[in-house]
């Protein structure tokens, strides 16, 4: 039963975050770039307020898969370092923050460039 709920809440929360993105693009007339930046910064702010981790506990992948989790994981790393080392930590923390999404995208982007060619088909 717990497993079923994990899927359900991941679906709903993930879907809602995407709808927010869609509204930013459609109603706010923003480019995808602007939309993603707003979402990432929102994720970072929510983590600063200590609200993002509970959301992950609630929704699982519904909160870790959307781009907002970038902001969260980066801020989380920076906050952890700042907590440990104070002022120095804020600076050194920046060199330790990680996001697997970024590293994965770099690696796979490189691999993709090795094997694929761009396609220009309409459908």
């Amino acid at each position, binding site marked *: 039963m717990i497993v079923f709920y994990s899927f359900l809440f991941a679906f709903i929360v993930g879907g809602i975050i995407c709808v927010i993105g869609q509204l930013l*693009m459609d109603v706010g007339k923003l480019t995808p770039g602007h939309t993603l930046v707003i979402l990432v910064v929102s994720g970072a702010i929510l983590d600063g307020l200590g609200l993002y981790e509970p959301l992950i506990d609630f929704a699982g992948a519904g909160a870790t898969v959307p781009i907002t989790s970038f902001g969260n994981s980066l801020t989380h790393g920076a906050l952890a370092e700042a907590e440990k080392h104070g002022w120095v930590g804020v600076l050194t923390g920046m060199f330790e923050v990680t996001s697997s999404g970024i590293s994965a995208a770099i690696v796979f982007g490189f691999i993709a460039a090795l094997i694929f060619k*761009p*396609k*220009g*088909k*309409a*459908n």
Partner: protein
Amino acid sequence: MILFPSKPSIVACSAVAGPVESKSVFYSYFDSVSEDERWGQKTNEQGHSKMIQEACDIVMKKADLKNLDVDFFLSGDLVNQMTPTNFAARELAISFIGLFSACATSVSSVIIASLLTEVGASRFAIAGAASQHNAIERQFRYPLDYGAQKPATAQWTVTAAGYALIGKHDPKLPSVVAATVGKVVDYGEVSPFHMGGAMAPAAYDTITSHLKKRHQKITDYDLIMTGDLGKIGLKILKAMFAQTDATQEELEVFRDAGAEYYGEDEAFQSGASGAGCSASVYFSYIEQQMKTGRYKRVLLVATGALLSPMSFQQGETIPCTAHAIEITME
């Protein structure tokens, strides 16, 4: 408005298109359709260049001419600094002027070619334009494989080239009798996904100005064909003329190459666009229809959006232009 008393003729035409364009309703009028969107070259831009060369070769072959017999090559495309056209000109070795009027280049080049012919500077001149989807899309919008949602007003940049060989008057051939060089019009449209809406005022401006100076009515023409307003842009243009009391009969005269290019296929949304869009329709379908006598007098109005990716990012509106040529068949 410019009048051409000597009526330079369109001696021959050629249209070359890419694989996606095999879905075009004008497919059967094209001279050659490549199965490879890069024409066997390594890059999209090289393929673009190759396509232009092929189209020029075909038009010369049709008129039984060699490079040396052609005095001018007037052409343009949408890639930065028009390198595909420049590189094609390098291979052709014909006196060359690169022209940029965005998607209106197909007509602006014919205007210049006709002028050169009119003043006796040119025996034969090749005029036209081309665009290659991949090369242009990556420059103006997103990478090709990026999953972006495009609104219903978006248009599909065609992979096609259209060229006309302009020579001295021949009564058996369609001839250029008048032209209007358009002003640049900007009504404040900012979305690069709504070109039709940006360009319709330019087309309206050029058409009304041409009609007024020629003292003609819309119905004096068998056809007024705009370049790449798309389905929505054409609707807007018609609405503008309806506003100024054009009758239904008059509105029937208007057609748009971009709107019809891919038929009703919804994958292409509002239709086709790109410099090659109007060029490949004007210099294949329209020319052939005029030769068969279906149309005696047409006004071709190619429209162009004069934006760059940078101007869009800097928040500038999209200025547009439209150039018109009047072609008759005796």
